[in-house]
């Protein structure tokens, strides 16, 4: 190390004299050597053994013994403390622990005593091994792995004789049938694993509750549905949506489901905002909205988090997971973050009673990209 360090400017270094006098540094015109490398490197052996305090004096060993014993006793005390605390401490009582705050006393003491109980054994054993168990370096040479030539020859002979006596070489039907059977044997093992991955998604990811219930012929009614407040499950009057408002919306009927509510919510969640129509810069957005009320899918096109953070002054919609930011004035175009596509807009209007309704389902699949989605 020191020799290396004495060179002023680092780099690859060869020791002078070791590989012949012609050896030079790589960065100073290295030439291929003339065979100065020794046929076999010397085994440098072990560094000199240093003795421990416990090897050198009985008092040192005594001290180590006491330390190890002390750690084991600590473990015993921890275990006993655990048992006592388990029965003695009231489940509801709390205690103040500096730096942590108010905590349940039983949990805190059980955790502490169990830590003592386990760590006492662990640290004791390691300390024992380090201080008192023999630490002299020993070398155990590796045995050659290869069998002797006779043994190898014998083995081939035995195998050949066995195959011969079992008629394997003379009866090809058995040989090939067995091969086939063993080859196909893997199928029943693999098939359920692949089959158990579940049914193919079909159009599941492309449709949402806004499409309505699937008919028997596989088509969807795509009928208008009222926009309902989540979680109140009440319809929304367009006049209630004042400028700057934000409503979190589910399609009519979704919150009445008894099963698969969350799966449906995960695709159908919608956020409704009202902007001053003059602030909206996309004609399509205005057309698909109603007097500045616009409805967008709440499922981020990046990895599907709910995009709910609406800033009413900047009209930015922010996704809390990875900070994808959508500009509501520009048809929810991505203006920051990892999302690649704008949020899908839901076309809305009002019904005869003045409640907001959808004009049909989403025109594209909501949420993150998937294999069968087609475009990006």
């Amino acid at each position, binding site marked *: 190390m020191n020799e290396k360090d004495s060179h002023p400017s680092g780099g690859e270094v060869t020791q002078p004299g070791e590989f012949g006098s012609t050896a030079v540094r790589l960065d100073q015109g290295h030439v291929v050597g003339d065979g100065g490398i020794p046929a076999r490197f010397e085994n440098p052996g072990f560094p000199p053994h240093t*003795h421990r305090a416990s090897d050198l004096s009985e008092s040192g060993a005594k001290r180590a013994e006491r330390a190890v014993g002390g750690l084991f006793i600590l473990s015993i005390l921890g275990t006993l403390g655990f048992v006592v605390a388990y029965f003695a401490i009231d489940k509801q009582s709390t205690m103040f622990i500096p730096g942590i705050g108010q*905590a349940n006393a039983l949990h805190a003491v059980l955790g502490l005593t169990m830590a003592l109980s386990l760590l006492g054994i662990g640290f004791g054993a390691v300390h024992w091994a380090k201080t008192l168990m023999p*630490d002299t370096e020993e070398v155990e040479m590796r045995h050659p792995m290869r069998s002797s030539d006779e043994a190898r020859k014998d083995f081939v002979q035995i195998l050949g004789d066995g195959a011969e006596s079992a008629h394997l070489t003379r009866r090809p039907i058995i040989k090939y049938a067995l091969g086939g059977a063993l080859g196909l044997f893997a199928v029943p093992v693999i098939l359920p694993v692949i089959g158990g991955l579940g049914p193919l998604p079909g159009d599941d990811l492309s449709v949402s509750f806004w499409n309505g219930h699937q008919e028997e012929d596989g088509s969807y009614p795509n009928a208008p549905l009222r926009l309902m407040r989540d979680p109140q499950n009440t319809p929304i009057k367009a006049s209630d*949506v004042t400028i700057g408002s934000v409503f979190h919306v589910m399609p009519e009927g979704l919150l009445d489901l008894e099963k698969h509510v969350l799966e449906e919510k995960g695709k159908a969640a919608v956020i409704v905002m009202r902007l001053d129509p003059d602030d909206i810069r996309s004609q399509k957005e205005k057309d698909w909205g109603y007097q500045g009320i616009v409805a967008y899918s709440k499922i981020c096109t990046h990895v599907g988090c709910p995009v709910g953070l609406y800033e*009413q002054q900047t009209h930015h919609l922010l996704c809390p997971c990875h900070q994808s930011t959508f500009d509501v004035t520009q048809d929810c175009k991505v203006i920051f973050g990892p999302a690649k596509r704008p949020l899908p807009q839901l076309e809305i209007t009002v019904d005869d009673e003045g409640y907001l309704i959808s004009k049909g389902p989403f025109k594209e699949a909501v949420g993150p990209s998937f294999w069968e989605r087609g475009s990006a």
Partner: protein
Amino acid sequence: MNALAARRRHPAAIALLLMLGLLVTGFAYAAVAPQPAQAETSTAEDVAAGKQLFVANCATCHGVNAEGRATGKGDQVAGPALAGVGAAAVDFQMGTGRMPMRAPAVQAPRATVQFSQDEIDKVAAYVASLAPGPAVPSEEDVDPSKGDPAKGGELFRVNCAMCHNFAGSGGALTRGKYAPALEGVSGKHIYEAMETGPQSMPVFNDGNIAPEEKRDIIAFLKSIEDAPQQGGHALGSLGPVTEGWFAWFFGLGILIATAVWLGQKAA
């Protein structure tokens, strides 16, 4: 009864019936229709005193007649027009010390309140006199003991938690803005914030979240503030960010320290 039946084809009957119908509808609507809330009692003196306070303390940004002022830099606004923001907005902004704003910034932070409640009420009366707007809620409107914390929690998680965090600890928005923590905020100010939508916050008017539901949300926030903390250090109730940091920093630190100790020779 017969006399009445005989006259039912009288030419005046239809007009009378129409009249009656209109009256009934009118009264019924007046009784049921949501009233634009107005500040309860504000006298002309209050408004005049409020105007004086306003001109002295607010007009620099909001204009002498609260008409709003531009900075002259693009579409940046020094202070928005205040007609129609209502007494609730004034009570919230001044009552939490956000206004008067100390310096131009992306967001006015909560700060020490600079005016007495009496002065704030006067400015509120003045601003409310400009145009109808949401009034300051009554004591009963914001009484957490009258709300249902469970229902409020449900509403909070759908409408508020994405910005203000599941435990009301606040969170980041874009470009340096943030949703403030809700701990220690009075019920009145929470109600007013929902009603008026200050700064980046959207409006949650009574048509969206009814007054009783607002009270439920206040009750929920109070209940999580009062709930006994038995889990030790909450790490700011910020969720995976601080908890992950703790696990990585201390967990990995202890593992590395132990590995180094195990690999060391005793001598």
